């Protein structure tokens, strides 16, 4: 793997890794909940919460939704 | 030339797509050709070929693959191929959709001829259904696209002081998706048509002839036009306003276009989703609407109306904007209650997404949905009422210049009052259960869409004709057009309310003898209404070719599009537009001029 250039990039890449790990954990939780729970309403609610959290993390940290109203960062 | 190349590449694409499919099918031991599936697969390839041929490759896509995009030509030629100037695109939209309007109007004349007396005369029942369905979708397409497509494209960027739309290439793309829509609809009619009206309710649309597939593909494409156009307007209005053009100084037509675009870009997917489900049921053996497998036709009605009710506001919000624009300038008064109107438009946007099921009171949907949709639907009358307040307040004690655009704008108020009030009968369950799917509904939506939007369209068309063509229109022909159309319109649709209540249902090729007198009267009035378009067409052609040269500002209006030459220069402004006050400061003592064109600055050079 090629090395990372700048300190700024390293910070950003590490943040990405953290978000990915959180997403992976949430996915595993989803799966475990799904195979172990029998109540459909509770399952739907839990899955909706988990999916919402994953969606939020991806839009905020991966898709940089805030740049829509905050503009492009200067370098 | 570009159009011919587009056709050739479309045919090549279609042959290629259907060929690959056919090859696979033959290797699986099936027949080479399967009408539904072959069209579904071949069409996207044909579409790509067409887009590439008319200029999408030469002027755009080649860049993605490392090529250099060519310069678009100048002169008359540019109207016949890919062009990115919003003014060219506005004219292209205008001419295309006026042509479609006339064609669909001709279909209406056929319908009225057939319905003049009971029994079948002009058409067979099958032909009648095809003509009626074509009239429906043709007019819906005109109503959705013409206001934003023609006038939105032409004047919105100039009104806000922009040099073009935010995405000129996407703009060109969205226009060039339109001819395939028209061509597919015509081919569908030639192939025997489809008999589901413009609403395409399954299961009929899953079981009927293959014309339905072409209809679905055409309308999905048209949805794309609407979505891309909507996105383009939103971004343009958000980011391309000139310095000083604050949200509170936007001309009201720009607000109308903005509000309509908000709906178009988000809700249009509903129609697309419904039509895709029909296609899947037809070609992929799915069961969205097969009752025996757990599917439900009512699902389609939900998905379809989720778009198709908001769609009427895509039609009518820009129309509100255009009418209020004309009323203000031609009454020489500030637009009354500007901020309230903006609030009302946004209120309509917000409510539009939660009223769809009032089209379904008789569909057999769950009972508990009736009450909320009744209440929400009637709430829409509140913001709509604000529009009427603004219209009346604006003409109140004004200096009403009774030229053709003003006549159409004033007629809009009358027609939309009738359309709005009769809508309440249809929102109310106890009356709607009787009136649903009768001629009462036909009359109601013609009063809102034709009496509303199409009258507004003509107000806008006559109002901006000098700007767009650089020529003056013939006032006498314009007034003849107006009076024939206005009187003909009332005589057609007022009796339709009554015959509907009496028990005549819509979309019928034939009816019991009891309704014969009404229908004869309606048909004769219909021909009067139709004849008005002869004067309109003559006026447009004659004036465009040899009308007098128009001044830059024949209406002495304040907004920016009138501060540049007619037609405007290539990048709209020779200098930099400067906005210093609201758009309608008529008679306001000491108010600075709304806008003027300052010297060119380095920024836009």
């Amino acid at each position: 793997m090629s090395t990372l250039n700048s300190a700024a990039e390293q910070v950003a890449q590490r943040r990405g890794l953290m978000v990915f790990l959180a997403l992976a954990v949430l996915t595993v939780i989803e799966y475990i909940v799904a195979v172990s729970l029998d109540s459909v309403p509770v399952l739907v609610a839990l899955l909706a919460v988990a999916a919402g959290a994953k969606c939020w993390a991806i839009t905020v940290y991966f898709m940089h939704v805030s740049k829509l109203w905050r503009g492009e960062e200067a370098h | 030339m570009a159009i011919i190349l587009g056709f050739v590449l479309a045919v090549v694409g279609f042959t290629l797509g259907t060929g690959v499919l056919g090859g696979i099918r033959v290797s699986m031991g099936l027949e080479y050709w399967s009408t539904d599936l072959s069209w579904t697969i071949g069409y996207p390839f044909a579409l790509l070929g067409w887009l590439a041929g008319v200029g999408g490759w030469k002027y755009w896509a080649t860049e993605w693959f490392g090529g250099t995009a060519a310069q678009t030509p100048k002169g008359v030629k540019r109207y016949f191929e890919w062009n990115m100037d919003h003014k060219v695109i506005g004219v292209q939209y205008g001419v295309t959709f006026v042509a479609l309007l006339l064609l669909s109007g001709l279909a209406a004349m056929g319908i009225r001829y057939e319905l003049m007396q009971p029994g079948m005369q002009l058409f067979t029942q099958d032909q009648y259904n095809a003509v009626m369905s074509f009239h429906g979708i043709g007019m819906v397409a005109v109503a959705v696209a013409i206001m934003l497509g023609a006038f939105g494209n032409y004047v919105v960027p100039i009104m806000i002081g922009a040099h073009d739309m935010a995405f000129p290439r996407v703009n060109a793309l969205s226009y060039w998706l339109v001819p395939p829509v028209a061509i597919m609809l015509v081919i569908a009619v030639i192939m025997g048509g489809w008999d589901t009206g413009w609403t395409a309710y399954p299961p009929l649309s899953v079981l009927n002839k293959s014309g339905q597939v072409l209809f679905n593909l055409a309308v999905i494409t048209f949805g794309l036009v609407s979505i891309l156009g909507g996105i383009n307007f939103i971004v343009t209005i958000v980011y391309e306003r000139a310095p000083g053009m604050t949200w509170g100084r936007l001309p009201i037509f720009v607000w109308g276009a903005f509000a309509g675009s908000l709906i178009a870009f988000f809700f249009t997917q509903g129609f697309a989703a419904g039509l895709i489900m029909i296609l899947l049921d037809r070609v992929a053996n799915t069961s969205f609407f097969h009752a025996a497998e757990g599917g439900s036709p009512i699902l389609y009605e939900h998905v379809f109306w989720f778009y198709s009710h908001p769609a009427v506001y895509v039609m009518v919000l820009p129309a509100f904007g255009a009418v209020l624009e004309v009323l203000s300038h031609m009454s020489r008064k500030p637009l009354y209650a500007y901020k309230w109107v903006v609030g009302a438009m946004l209120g309509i946007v917000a409510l539009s997404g939660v009223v769809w099921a009032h089209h379904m009171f008789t569909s057999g949907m769950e009972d508990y949905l009736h009450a909320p949709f009744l209440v929400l639907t009637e709430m829409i009358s509140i913001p709509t009422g604000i529009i009427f307040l603004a219209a009346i307040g604006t003409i109140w004690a004004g200096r009403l210049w009774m030229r053709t655009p003003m006549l159409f704008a004033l007629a809009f108020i009358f027609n939309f009052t009738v359309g709005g009030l009769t809508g309440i009968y249809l929102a109310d369950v106890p009356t709607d259960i009787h009136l649903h799917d009768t001629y009462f509904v036909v009359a109601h939506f013609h009063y809102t869409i034709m009496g509303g939007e199409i009258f507004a369209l003509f107000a806008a068309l006559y109002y901006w004709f000098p700007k767009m063509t650089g020529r003056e229109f013939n006032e006498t022909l314009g007034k003849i057009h107006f009076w024939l159309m206005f009187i003909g319109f009332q005589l057609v649709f007022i009796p339709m309310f009554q015959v509907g209540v009496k028990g005549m249902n819509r979309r019928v090729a034939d009816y019991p003898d009891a309704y014969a007198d009404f229908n004869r009267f309606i048909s004769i009035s219909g021909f009067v209404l139709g004849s008005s378009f002869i004067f309109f067409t003559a006026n447009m052609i004659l004036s465009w070719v040899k009308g007098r040269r128009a001044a830059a500002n024949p209406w002495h209006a304040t907004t920016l599009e009138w501060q540049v030459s007619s037609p405007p220069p290539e990048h709209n402004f020779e200098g930099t537009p400067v906005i210093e006050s609201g758009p309608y400061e008529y008679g306001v003592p000491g108010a600075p001029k709304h806008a003027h064109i300052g010297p060119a600055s380095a920024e836009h050079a």
Partner: protein
Amino acid sequence: MAATATLPHGREVDSSHAARRVRINRLGLWLFLASDGALFALFAASRFYIAGTAISPHLNQLLGLGITSLLLLSSFTAYRAETAFTHGNTSHGRMMLLATVLMGLMFFGGVVYEWSIAEFSPSEAYGTAFFSMTGMHAFHVVTGVFFLLLMWARSGDGKFTGGTNAWPIAAAVIYWHFVDVVWVFFYPTLYLLK
């Protein structure tokens, strides 16, 4: 080079012409995604309308979990690619683009495999939902792969490196994340209910 303006919080914002253009494109892209998202949402809602929360007992749950993880991982590599390009690290960015493309293709392969072994037909209620939703999503995966490949092919000369230059990469990557977001909702909708 780039013009900057300082906001009240002391954060510097690029106000150059190029940055303005990126801002415009960004809003356009997001509006497109919102519109596209509405289409997916309507199909997801239809799934509950025709099939309730039922799923087919014949689903291969491990395969589902596998391709889901793969798509999630590809979102991570896409993020790495974009971050690398914005910070001027072209070579790492290109490698990550390729990794994303590869995982995208593997995901697509997984879906195709799943279709080929499925023991339920599209004419059942659940099958209708399953095949139409995964099919539409797979179509978006393929277009996403196409855009990413295009970006990989064109980024060799470094013209997408740094700041606003990296916008085309960012656009393709945002689209890819969107495809993942759709799957975030489709996965539980199609696999994890009862």
